[in-house]
């Protein structure tokens, strides 16, 4: 089984390399004439007047947390999906209960307005 993952490993390493080589080529071949205006962060015509790393709406974090939970749910669904015809109705029932419980959470977040962006 591991042998079949060797190409994957090689591919990942090569893909990193493919990212590095053009960048290096860019640094080597392209001119480098930095000046202050060129290097300052882009703004629409005026000086950047504060640090751009601002605080963000908590909603972004909420989306990230909910994403983790649903991602886990998907991870649970994957093995279930491929053995469904082997585990039959009992397996279906088990997953129905699982999804049912999480559906309560989904409805709760819907009703609470956690999915609204304003």
């Amino acid at each position, binding site marked *: 089984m591991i042998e079949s993952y060797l190409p994957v490993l090689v*591919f990942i390493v090569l*893909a990193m390399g493919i990212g590095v080589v053009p960048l290096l*080529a860019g640094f080597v071949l392209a001119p480098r004439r930095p000046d202050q205006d060129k290097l300052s*962060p882009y703004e629409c015509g005026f000086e950047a007047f504060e640090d751009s790393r601002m605080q963000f709406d908590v909603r972004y974090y909420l*989306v990230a947390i909910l994403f983790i939970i649903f991602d886990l749910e998907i991870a649970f669904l994957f093995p279930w999906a491929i053995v469904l015809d082997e585990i039959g109705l009992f397996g279906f029932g088990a*997953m*129905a209960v699982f999804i049912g419980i999480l559906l309560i959470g989904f409805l709760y977040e819907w009703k609470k307005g956690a999915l609204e962006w304003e």
Partner: protein
Amino acid sequence: MSELIELAWIVAKIVALVVPLFVAVAYMTYAERKVISAMQLRRGPNRVGWHGLLQPIADALKLLMKEVVLPSNANRFLFVLAPMLAIMPALAAWAVLPLGEGIVIADINAGLLYVLAMTSMGVYGIILAGWASNSKYALLGAMRAGAQVVSYEIAMGFALVGVLMAAGSLNMSEIVHAQAGPIWNWFWLPLLPLFVVYWISGVAETNRLPFDVAEGESEIVAGFHVEYSGMAFAIFFLAEYANMILISGLAAVMFLGGWYSPFHGLPVLGPMFDWVPGIIWFCLKICLFLFLYIWFRATFPRYRYDQIMRLGWKVLIPVTVVWLIVVSGMVLTEFGPWF
């Protein structure tokens, strides 16, 4: 010694995949400009080479010769790392995609899971690029893109679960084998709602129009890669287009029968098209989806951000959950030719 030969063989296969992929990316940009200009009654690029066919090469050379600007307040290490993190998953996911009968670099059992894991890593390049640039527009674009990509990944994951149930395997080649037969044997028909959801979330995952608020030229100039120039920008560009082709390839494998011809197994038409290699069919299917990408870009106006999030969470996810229940019913009753 034999291990070295094996390694060289693997590298050769990867090069044989990546080089055509890059050419495809280059000419995808050309096709995009030509098709959109045709839709807008313009001519599009027609100066460099015959009908502008050398335009992508000229563009690549130009990007190569442009200065890579490192903004003064940027975190240099992360600024350079971000494009690499963007392109790595976009390429690495190709390892498990079967291009034809037995033509696959890594035929692993957990193929689809691997693809999902790789695409979920694509968000790092975007978030890091936005944060490392230390620019307002970049950060805004990165946050939007981050939240959007993760939201649509859920809908996409659920849609893929339907494919798994129908195919009964995570292996990409076996998923295609499960669809052997003419066009109505493919999964797009029984899984039509999931197919649509997958495609919409695929477009959103790649931050393409009409879901391109992360870049939104007219709002936040170019979003997360506003500070990138030269080759660093080119890598983001490459990653975006490689991702588009990847999403199209996945759609072809999971819903449109991969390398099978639409007439496979039919009495008269089937043998008539037997001489066409499977990889040609596969590429044609990819082209179909890529054309859809371009078509969308030319016709749809941009969604507003709250509309995007609403579509992802309140429309796509409920639709997939309902259809998963229907599919499990079909699997348990072994319905039709599909299950």
